[in-house]
């Protein structure tokens, strides 16, 4: 199964961590959060969320509150978390009353990245480049590619998360990659 080949960070300890989180152990919550919160925030940011950090916290509040009903492997947990993040993003867009969801090129978005000046500058350059790349994609292509690249989800998991067919997801990621190539070369 493709999902089991996906990247795992917690690995074999996942079951233990999950059980501990269900039992309310703070260390287990922190472990799960540290594993997935950065990529969830990155996904939401590149998707143009207005407050990606706050939205990430909302996502994990819901995820941790629903842990008792979750059964599965780490990749499945990852897929579930990104599915929730995607839905929260859609809800936020709806609440924002049609605010454009395009990723911004505004340099102010790159403020507050922390670290020393050189690292910050490199990060800023990298982020700017990434924003430019994402801006070349359509909303659907960006949604699919970010879930695959950042979320590390399989095609099937992305299809379930965004409510599209597997074939549609494949077509979107293919066209998205073609658009990226065109932008690069």
């Amino acid at each position, binding site marked *: 199964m493709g999902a089991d080949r996906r990247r795992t960070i917690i690995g074999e300890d996942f079951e233990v961590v999950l059980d501990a989180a269900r039992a309310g152990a703070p260390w287990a919550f922190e472990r799960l959060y540290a594993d997935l919160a950065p990529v969830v925030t*990155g996904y939401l940011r590149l998707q143009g969320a207005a407050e990606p950090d706050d939205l990430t916290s909302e996502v994990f509040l819901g*995820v941790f509150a629903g842990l008792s*009903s979750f059964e599965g492997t780490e990749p499945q947990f990852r897929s579930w978390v990104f599915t929730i993040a995607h839905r929260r993003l859609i809800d936020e867009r709806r609440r924002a009353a049609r605010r454009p969801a395009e990723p911004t090129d505004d340099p102010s978005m790159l403020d507050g*990245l922390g670290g020393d000046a050189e690292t910050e500058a490199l990060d800023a350059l990298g982020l700017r480049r*990434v924003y430019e790349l994402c801006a070349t994609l359509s909303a659907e292509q960006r949604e699919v590619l970010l879930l695959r690249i950042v979320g590390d989800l399989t095609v099937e998991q992305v299809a379930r998360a965004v*409510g599209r067919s597997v074939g549609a997801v494949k077509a979107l*990621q293919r066209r998205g*990659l073609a658009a990226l190539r065109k932008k690069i070369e």
Partner: protein
Amino acid sequence: MLPLHLLDEDAVEALLAGRPVTPGLAPLAGAIGQIRAAARQPVRPSDELARRMASGDFSGIEPAPLTPVPSGHRLRSWLAGVSPRARVVTGAVVVFTGLTAATAAGALPGGAQARMESFIESVTPISFQRDEPDVDRDDVRDAPSHVDGATAEPDDSGRPDDPGSPVTPPGKPETPPGKPETPGNPDKPETPPGKPETPPGKPETPGVPETPPIRPETPPGQPEEPGNSEDAPGQAETPPGQRETPPGRPEAPGQESGNGAGNAGNGNSGDRPHGPDR
């Protein structure tokens, strides 16, 4: 740049999973690596989340659903994301489709039904013809009625051509005795051999049993007019033996059908509707 078709599924999967790719795809792989790296910035939890994580208490928080979003939610999400113009167009299409379906089902109230039918017929190829057969039936009934008196021969066949009988279908008497189409079998021209009225040429044309021999007498332009029954009798007074298609005008029925589809249709539909009626 490599053409799109060279980006096969394996290459796509390798790129998205961060596996090694061919040198031609290296720039694209680098861009994907940049995207992946950019999405790994540490993030601090909100105060509420930090507090709840520390306490392990998430009571009062709505748990994230495990099941996929219902399609209705997805539709609402889609509607929320499209432009107002697209919403209006979508709504108009839905309303028009629904009204068309209701009109086709005849579910609208009388006046609205008629207006919608005419509107739909004017803007779409759809046509509502459910009333037309009735018109044909009426026409047929009218047309034969004026030759009623002329067709005395059907009496010979024992048909209930009794003019006084209200049950007698006006069309029956006109039915050429040679083609006593059974009401239910208009396609069966069971021409009784003994019928003298049957024109000599008629039996060979079983395929046109509907063509009443009376038609020739009826002026082509007036077959449907009941008021012409005054004239028709004049023609119908033709001796019974001549009442049917005169030998000199055998093609008259054909002409009639050529005169107008209404006549031919009358003959056809006249026989059929009458069958069930009687």
